[in-house]
């Protein structure tokens, strides 16, 4: 409604709320639905106030059935709507897995391109909130391994706003992973935000001695590590993937060529995690440019631990700095 810039300090949760609000305002075909997204505003309040403002025909609760939440989004997309469906927690997206992988991801191909799946599935993910079992998972590998999906995750309020709006505008199905431990992270947001592309990594901090590749919840951890390293005279570059599928190799390779040392950090298990793909590609494509093996930091091959133990399992600045030191031994 206004071209004037409005600046406010907002949490990531609020930034997401604003993105949903502005998409509903600007796109008459946008719809929001899921469990508890109506009057309650979602368990994390990301949809707070939206059903009141836009009405129950555009923002509505659904029965507790994730497969059909995803499948309903598919049917609505055929009808020309732009659904934004919410899965309440990471592990609760698993009942929708068949619909997402077998139908949503393949419908564009199956219909010869006649039925694009312009929809978003929002999933709060990651740990570090002291939750009970099934509320702290990092399911990204499941989704990035399925062609036809795009998978993105913001690490800060500004990206949360920009990426969610880009995801809603995109003609393909987007799995939008929200790092729930960062819902309360604050940042100054100046609206309107210039439209951003969905598939570009960003250099969150420039540096010269080693590259730390992170995404979602681990970007803040990497930035903290970089701050500590700087005080010790080591310059770390932090690259925020933002898009997990596709991966912006150009930005990653440019950073790796510059620093010659790479550490990848995520909450998900190391085994077959994003770090495995990044390390394998870099070994192949940058064999001559790197001076040390790519280091990976992530979870062991265990279920997510009880929350009293989670700090011992989550990546922290010390683990990142130790990994950087290992790359600097070469």
């Amino acid at each position: 409604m206004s071209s004037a810039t409005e600046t406010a300090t907002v949490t990531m949760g609020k930034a997401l709320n604003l993105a949903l609000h502005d998409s509903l305002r600007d796109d008459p075909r946008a719809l929001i639905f899921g469990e508890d997204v109506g009057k309650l505003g979602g368990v994390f309040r990301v949809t707070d106030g939206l059903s009141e403002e836009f009405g129950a025909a555009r923002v509505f609760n659904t029965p507790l059935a994730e497969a059909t939440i995803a499948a309903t989004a598919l049917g609505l997309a055929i009808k020309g709507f732009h659904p934004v469906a919410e899965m309440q927690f990471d592990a609760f997206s698993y009942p929708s897995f068949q619909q997402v992988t077998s139908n949503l991801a393949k419908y564009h191909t199956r219909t010869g391109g006649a039925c694009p799946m312009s929809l978003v599935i929002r999933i709060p993910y990651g740990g570090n909130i002291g939750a009970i079992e099934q509320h702290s998972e990092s399911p990204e590998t499941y989704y990035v391994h399925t062609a036809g999906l795009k998978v993105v995750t913001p690490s800060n309020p500004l990206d949360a706003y920009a990426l969610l709006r880009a995801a809603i505008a995109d003609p393909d199905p987007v799995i939008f992973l929200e790092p729930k431990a960062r819902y309360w992270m604050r940042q100054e947001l100046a609206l309107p935000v210039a439209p951003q592309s969905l598939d570009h990594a960003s250099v969150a901090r420039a540096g010269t001695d080693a590259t730390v590749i992170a995404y979602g919840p681990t970007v803040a951890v990497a930035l903290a590590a970089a701050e500590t390293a700087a005080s010790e005279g080591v310059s770390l570059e932090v690259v925020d993937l933002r898009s997990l599928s596709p991966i912006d190799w150009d930005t990653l390779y440019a950073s790796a060529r510059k620093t010659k040392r790479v550490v990848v950090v995520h909450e998900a298990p190391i085994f077959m995690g994003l770090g495995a793909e990044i390390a394998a590609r870099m070994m192949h494509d940058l064999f001559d440019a790197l001076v040390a093996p790519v280091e990976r930091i992530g979870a062991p091959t265990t279920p997510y631990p009880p929350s009293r133990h989670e700090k011992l399992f989550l990546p922290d600045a010390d683990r990142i700095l130790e990994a950087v030191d290992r790359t600097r031994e070469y």
Partner: protein
Amino acid sequence: MADVISTSPMRSDASPPHNPIAELLTPEGTLTAEGERLAGVSDETLRELYRLMVVMRRLDQEGLNLQRQGELGLWGPTLGHEAAQVGGALAMRATDWIFPYYRDFGMAIVRGVDPGKLLTIFRGLRHGAWDPHEYRFAPFIIPVGTQVPHAVGYALGCKLDGDDTAVLTCFGEGATSTGDWHEAMNFAGVFKAPVVFLCQNNQWAISVPMSEQVAGRIVDRAAGYGFPGVRVDGADALTVYAVVQMAADHARRGEGPYLIEALSYRLGPHTTSDDPTRYRTEEDGAAWRAHDPIARAEERLRQRGAWDDAFASACQREADERAASMRATLIAATPDHPASVFDLVYANPPQTLLRERDAFVADLAPDAPQEGH
């Protein structure tokens, strides 16, 4: 459209769903004389049902022949489904949508999908062979029952848009064991979506008989989700046609979903990869062979004095011609360039995929088909 969600705090207090169609059926699930009068099915429509069933059976037989001759990798015969598929599809308006299951070959024929192109799916040429918007006919879905909630989503969209549209979705009795099916039924009931659920209960899910698949009766599930259900004689095209049409009108009027369980019998194998001799005998289907949908339609036409042999011959001739045409279309179909597999993964493909495509094309053997052919 603020009434998408019921604001009633205690929906569970609702009385049992009113079931007007049930009153027009005999205990065997055929339309009563009164029902036939109310449905007002013309002789012309009855002849159309007959004609399309003759065509469907002939094309299905040709599909089986083509598989046996090595021209198709797989075929899922539809013998025994003629009445349910032709009756169900013909009952819907051209503006209505159908979300089929993988055996709905007859529905595709009714909707005008080119059967020769459809068969390219079973020849391994492509995963989908028609534009769903052109025919208001969604693609065949392989994972059992997962198309049912798609229909509910589309129907919800019709309601949100205020369209005068109803949606039909089909599935077998095996699908009613899946979670997606139950979820879809509940969503439809909660949203009062304009959708008709047509169960083609052919009594066999590959080798598992209905007795090992279904506890209670499928039709009774509907009441649990707050809408009516009827079980009909699925070998009687007139009954299926009339009942689906009434159910679709009920949905269009904003009165919510209907479940129709069309009881029939899968006279053939599950697919050409199946061997029914391992789990059932010829006698198992004998009663249903005597209850043939095409013979039933002929009988109804004769009862109305609307039968003539010249019409029947013309139907058979048309069926033979279309079978030959289907075969010719299929045999003439050529594979797309292998790199086309990359082209439809996304509407807005990422650079990484385009690079993979380039690498794939560069790696193709020199004798591979060239792009553009």
